[in-house]
């Protein structure tokens, strides 16, 4: 079996200390292959966002082990010193709302990531245009984010997540503001992008419309994950 893009073993996260301590994650295990889209569901307060933040290297877990693209990033402590570079180069983020930078046009919203990684401007913009074409929003390349429809903005945010060719994309309820038809279209798009770019995508969702579309789901409850095959 090929090395999984994401492997999490015994991940724990505790907030606070002593009697006030809360165990948001108690025993999380997860494996996602490259090119696979996996759903992560669970009730409010079950630990979905905490898991996403741990995977996104924005908060530090309390214990466990995490691998991204075959590289151990956490083993009872961060293994990689530069978490900012890790987030920039190896993790793509898609948010509930697109959160595009309002003062950059569509192309530069995407090109900013390769530029931050040190790519020349022309090369970064070429990469942005390539992704915009692939996501059928190439004609809006020079538009400002405020000029785009909700669906177009979400496509641009997907393109931004793919800009640095990360092995992992974390999508935080990406279909929440969309109707059924558009929500399903976004999931199909994510599957298509995952397959094309060999990227593992974890989609955190409450959206019952799209849950049946996932081949594999992780259900998180009380800080523990359970795999569900659909």
């Amino acid at each position, binding site marked *: 079996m090929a090395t999984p893009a994401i492997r999490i073993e015994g991940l724990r996260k505790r907030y606070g200390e002593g009697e006030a301590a809360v165990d948001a994650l108690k025993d999380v295990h997860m494996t996602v292959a490259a090119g696979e889209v996996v759903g992560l569901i669970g009730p409010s307060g079950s630990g979905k*966002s905490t898991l996403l*933040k741990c995977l996104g290297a924005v908060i530090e877990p309390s214990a466990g082990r995490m691998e991204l693209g075959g590289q151990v990033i956490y083993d009872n402590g961060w293994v990689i010193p530069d978490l*900012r570079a890790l987030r920039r180069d190896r993790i793509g983020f898609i948010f*509930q709302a697109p959160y595009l*930078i309002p003062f950059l046009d569509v192309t*530069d919203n995407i090109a900013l990531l390769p530029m*931050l*990684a040190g790519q020349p*401007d022309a090369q970064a913009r070429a990469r942005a245009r390539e992704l915009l074409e692939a996501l059928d929003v190439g004609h809006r390349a020079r538009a400002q984010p405020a000029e785009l429809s909700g669906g177009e903005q979400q496509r641009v945010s997907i393109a931004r997540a793919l800009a640095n060719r990360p092995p992992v994309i974390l999508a*935080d309820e990406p279909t929440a503001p969309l109707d059924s038809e558009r929500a399903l279209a976004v999931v199909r798009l994510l599957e298509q992008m995952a397959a094309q770019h060999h990227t593992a995508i974890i989609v955190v969702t409450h959206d019952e419309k799209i849950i049946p579309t996932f081949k594999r789901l992780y259900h998180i409850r009380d800080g523990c994950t359970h795999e569900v095959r659909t």
Partner: protein
Amino acid sequence: MISLAGRDILHSWGKFVLTGLGLGLLIGVTLSMAGVYRGMVDDARALLNNSGADLWVVQQDTQGPYAESSSLRDDVVRGVLGLAGVERAANVTYLTMQVRRSDGAPGAAASSDPVATGGDASGEVRAMVVGFEPGQPGEPGYLVAGRHLTRSHYEAVADVRTGFALGDRIRIRRHDYTVVGLTRRMVSSGGDPMVFIPLKDAQEAQFLKDNDAILNERARTAANPAFNRPGVPGLLEAVQAAQSANHSVNAILVQVRPGFDPEAVAAPIRRWKHLEAYTRVQMEEILVAKLIATSARQIGMFLVILAIVSAAIVAFIIYTMTLGKIREIAVLKLIGTRDRTIAGMILQQALGLGLIGFVVGKVSATLWAPVFPKYVLLEPADALRGLVVVMLICTLASTLAIRVALKVDPAAAIGG
């Protein structure tokens, strides 16, 4: 790499320009305040330059004639002329007063542009009346229109800022004078334009009492048995004549022969004539360091307050703008933007705002400076210093917003 600050400014240029405009007007006021101070210093120097003197001889124990009242007899000049090293010496009088047209009507220039000319709607002008001897030190250096005084009485040369025109009749005390010449940049240390009249007329204007007062004084003298003794013919007339005549001036302006040190010429005047003599350097010290020192401190206080207000405004604006971008900053940090890039963006925006403000301020100050009633001197070096201070203030003001931005948690971009 994209300039995030530049893009943000372009994206919300209206907000930036309007804010910069407001800040710019404040900076314009600040530059004008500095210009007012420079103008006062320049006026003081112009006064010294225009007098054409190397030494000012004044009453003992006074710092006259500009800073304090000074009075000395007009025949002292003869003794001064005899001293070694004195090229020329002449009496002068200075009297600051309201001068008006003799018909009482507002002057044409004064009424049409009272601010630019220093006049007011009633046609009166606050002016320094200078009494001088034609061809001697104290005479206006150059004319822009008309001619110098050629008659002994009742002619005047006026600075253009009085608003008077050639041929105008102006009233000084009891007499009317015809304006025969116009000069420029002849002002007192307080910035009042000068009106030059013959020395004798000026002595009268300054020291001679009105007719009623003279009559009253004569009656008082006649009633005094000490001055009206029987058997002493001519005593009363002599005393009365002495009372109504005047032989005082405010100062003697001295030009020193080439090769002589003004200080060396001043020493015997102080020692043997029992008068005070000031060199150019000493007189400049009196005018700049003493006469306008309080005004300078006043303006300095205004400058400090304006700088603090500007800093507070920039800090508040940048802080508010940063608070409005917290989510974007969280996203930028989440996707790997360095802290220094985000700090740089905020700093550049603050500096951009300062730059817009400075340009608006400089243009505003340049446009409104000529409208001020007194001379406002905007020096390029002050503008340069102002730019540096504005940039420093903006840098300082941005630190609060930068602190807030750097505290933004990238996790804030992820919901839940």
